[in-house]
């Protein structure tokens, strides 16, 4: 049986990870390559890098990071943040990432999904979705609305409708982030996650709200997620990936236990 994936997410700005992180041993806490190695060796099933570099001239630093990560870890990893064109995708994939994630750019220009899937294969294209609960209405029948620009701009697009459309366009996977749950450490948005996961045929990675292993259990069972993104709960050393996996394993969730 397929294992549920546990995926640490690293925010990278100008080639450095942005959160202060308490690691044991000799890990340089600012270096995304060292952190990727640490998570690879600790049993991460995949790693997500989110490039939050503001200036476009510094974006090539990320390409160098991707190249060094690819030489260091031998599990899949994806890169998102600021991917707008086929050329952006090509650079990241050629540097060694398995997947690219598109978010705001895809909402503004859905064609980037189909063009990317055609050029690099569906399995390469992850649709990142930032979603906020706004209540059900005629315009937003599911009650969940697409938001872009890091949660600032409401798009008047129903999240469920967008997920189904993106699958048709060729997205290979959805990384679903709840703006309401993000940063709360109080658990994933289970209703949103199961709603999307049950209505698409592609895997859904749940994101936003993880604070303890029970939250992962909930989203991987009740939330019907195929994978769970985690950040601060492991970055600050509160939990280890092996600890989380051992909890999930004991609770009956199939996870990868040997690495």
């Amino acid at each position, binding site marked *: 049986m397929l294992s549920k994936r546990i995926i640490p997410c690293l925010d990278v700005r100008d080639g450095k990870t942005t959160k202060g992180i308490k690691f044991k041993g000799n890990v340089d806490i600012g270096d995304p390559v060292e952190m990727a190695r640490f998570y690879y060796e600790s049993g991460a099933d995949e790693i997500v890098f989110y490039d939050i570099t503001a200036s476009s001239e510094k974006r090539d630093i990320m390409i160098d990071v991707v190249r060094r990560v690819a030489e260091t870890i031998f599990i899949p990893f994806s890169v998102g943040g600021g991917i707008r064109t086929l050329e952006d995708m090509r650079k990241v994939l050629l540097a060694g990432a398995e997947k690219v994630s598109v978010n705001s750019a895809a909402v503004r220009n859905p064609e980037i999904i189909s063009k990317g899937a055609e050029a690099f294969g569906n399995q390469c294209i992850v649709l990142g979705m930032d979603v906020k609960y706004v209540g059900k209405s005629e315009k937003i029948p599911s009650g969940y609305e697409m938001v872009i620009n890091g949660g600032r701009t409401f798009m008047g697009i129903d999240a469920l409708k967008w997920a189904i459309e993106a699958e048709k366009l060729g997205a*290979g996977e959805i990384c679903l982030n709840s703006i309401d749950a993000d940063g709360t450490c109080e658990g994933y948005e289970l209703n949103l996650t199961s709603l999307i996961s049950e209505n698409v045929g*592609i895997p859904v990675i749940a994101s936003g709200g993880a604070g303890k292993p029970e939250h992962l259990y909930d989203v991987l069972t009740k939330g019907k997620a195929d994978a769970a993104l985690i950040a601060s709960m492991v970055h600050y050393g509160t939990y280890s990936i092996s600890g989380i996996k051992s909890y999930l394993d004991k609770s009956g969730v199939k996870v990868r236990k040997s690495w």
Partner: protein
Amino acid sequence: MIAIIDYDAGNLTSVARAVTHLGFKCIVTNKKEEIDRAERIIFPGVGAAGSAMKSIKRLGLDKAIKESFSSEKPILGICLGTQVIMEYSEENDTKCLGIIGGKVLSFKFDEIRRNGLGLKIPHMGWNRIILQKKHFILSDLKEEDEFYFVHGYYPAPDDPAHLIGTTEYGISFPSVIGYKNILATQFHPEKSGRPGLSILKNFCIWKPC
């Protein structure tokens, strides 16, 4: 020298990086002369069977691969590479290389969903190998080891003797096949951490008899 065959099917640098990391020399190439000279061949790839076979023929690589097989060089197929060594693929109704007898079949939603688990296609993520037959390349395999898969199709060899490992995903499907000097995996050893690297390492020192 190990030749990693480049037929415009996805990013092959990850296979090259893993082989280099293990301390073996390799080149990524689409030139027949270089493939002929190499001691071992890795035949990777992601994408669709139809366009892959078109590129293989356009580049004249069908001949190079078949000759490598007849000359008894060790060959490792990975993912799409594993599928196009079969005779035929349901994907794009494609005639393939025919090095191993049998077809490439798609996962059928109904079959996959029969157990009510709501499984998705492609089969994407980590899964186990159940060994059906001993093989040198898989000699380090432990029961709990898992490997990274991304695929909607799988190889189904006609001869049960060509079946080396299977994987469970709604159905039990062949995930490692091979005979003589060829071994082929549906998963990505270059992206499967320690157990995957061990498969690549064993391939790099394998002496088929």
